[in-house]
């Protein structure tokens, strides 16, 4: 019976995580539409529910009832596997994110790297979608997406090293505990900026949204997807936004630490503030060119991250 209990517990966790991911994505889509509307002096969705709160629920139900169009010229196996492979890692990553001192499902000693390892699976799903669709727009989008993720993963990994050096652990909980008094953003402001820019590129958000630049390549790697398959890419994209913001909160903004309010509230407040920043940036900056993208990644962010690492090391040893 003990086994059954464990199974039930795991099932419950899965239900909670999948439920949260869905609600989070619906909320973020609504939030994005509202933020963009306010920035562009519009109102955004207003009809369904209070200030259009239920607009995205209606959209989601519509999306689930849509026909699944499977083009004739595709490469079947990668095409059908790609949406699954996009969803799978995001749900797994959620396990390790601690939203409170005792509110986490899995406490891993390699938490930080675990998140990056499973993000690597997402990169492959982009490539499978692009290649499997047998459409030049999908292919172009996929190649751009993969190259971009690869180029910005190095500054991302390097910028975190400073934080790791200060607190001496890769455990996400341990990192937050080390920030009881001072948030690491004060010790590592440069690393935070590098991290934030790199995560924008990793999640294919504007101004780094070349993989799905709709004015050039239709919709990028998910041009040929419809209905629930498209929804899965969409869901994984918005979940990825939450994940990188949560990671930034844990690493630099003190995680759940904060006065008066309960821990999860503080955590979610910080995460959604960072996501709001990402949306603000999207509707402020124009899309950058691919050569600018590569120059920024390799020639500016990586050297800066290395300098940051060097300075941190020297200060720690003094």
């Amino acid at each position, binding site marked *: 019976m003990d086994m059954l209990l*464990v*199974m039930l*517990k*795991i099932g419950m966790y*899965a239900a909670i995580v999948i439920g949260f991911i869905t609600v989070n994505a619906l909320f973020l889509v609504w939030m994005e539409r509202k933020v963009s509307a306010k920035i562009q002096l519009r109102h955004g969705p207003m009809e369904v529910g209070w200030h259009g709160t239920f607009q995205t629920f209606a959209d989601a139900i519509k999306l*689930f*009832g*849509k026909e*699944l*169009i*499977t*083009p*004739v*010229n595709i*490469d079947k196996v990668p095409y059908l596997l790609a*949406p*699954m492979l996009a*969803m*799978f890692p995001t*749900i*797994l990553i959620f*396990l390790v994110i601690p939203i409170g001192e005792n509110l986490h499902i899995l406490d891993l000693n390699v938490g930080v*790297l675990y998140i990056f390892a499973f993000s690597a699976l997402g990169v492959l799903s982009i490539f499978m979608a692009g290649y499997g669709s047998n*459409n*030049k*727009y999908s*292919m172009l989008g996929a*190649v*751009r997406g*993969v*190259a971009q993720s*690869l*180029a910005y*993963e*190095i500054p991302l*990994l390097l910028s975190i*090293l400073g934080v*790791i*050096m*200060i607190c*001496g*652990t*890769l455990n996400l909980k341990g990192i937050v505990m080390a920030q009881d008094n001072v948030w690491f953003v004060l010790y590592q402001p440069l690393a935070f900026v590098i991290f934030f820019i790199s995560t924008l590129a990793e999640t294919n958000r504007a101004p780094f949204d070349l993989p799905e630049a709709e004015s050039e390549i*239709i919709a990028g790697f998910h*041009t*040929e997807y419809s*209905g*629930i*398959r498209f929804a*899965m890419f969409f869901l994984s994209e918005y979940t990825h936004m939450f994940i990188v913001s949560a990671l930034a909160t844990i690493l630099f903004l003190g995680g759940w630490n904060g006065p008066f309010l309960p821990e999860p509230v503080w955590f979610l407040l910080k995460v959604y503030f960072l996501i709001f920043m990402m949306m603000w940036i999207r509707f402020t900056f124009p899309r950058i060119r*691919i*050569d600018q993208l*590569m*120059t920024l990644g*390799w*020639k500016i962010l990586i050297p800066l991250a*290395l300098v940051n690492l060097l300075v941190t*090391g020297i200060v*720690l*040893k003094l």
Partner: protein
Amino acid sequence: MGDFTPLFIYGGLVLFVTCVMLVMTGLFAPFRTSEVKFQTYESGVQAETALFQKRFPLKHYLVALLFLVFDIEVVFLYPWAVVAKEIGSFAFFEMAFFMVALLVGFAYVWRKGGLTWD
């Protein structure tokens, strides 16, 4: 070792649920066939569908190669960063040597124009 069995079961469960989601909507969704609908998308004109037989010129190849090398270097930095506070100065200089090798490689690539997009 830590017991990771729940993690594996969770992973299996998640895979199962995503499969079910994909199959379920296939049952609900309408299905009307039409030859044009299932063509590859190409804003109204005849689509290019011979991609599988074509060579796809990639400037991104060098990016992938460089990424691989730097990724391995960074991975070696992680165990070091965890113990950076406790280890002695000698170990610190060992790491410095490692970093210098990385920097020389980086400078070489930069000098050769490998980081420039043309």
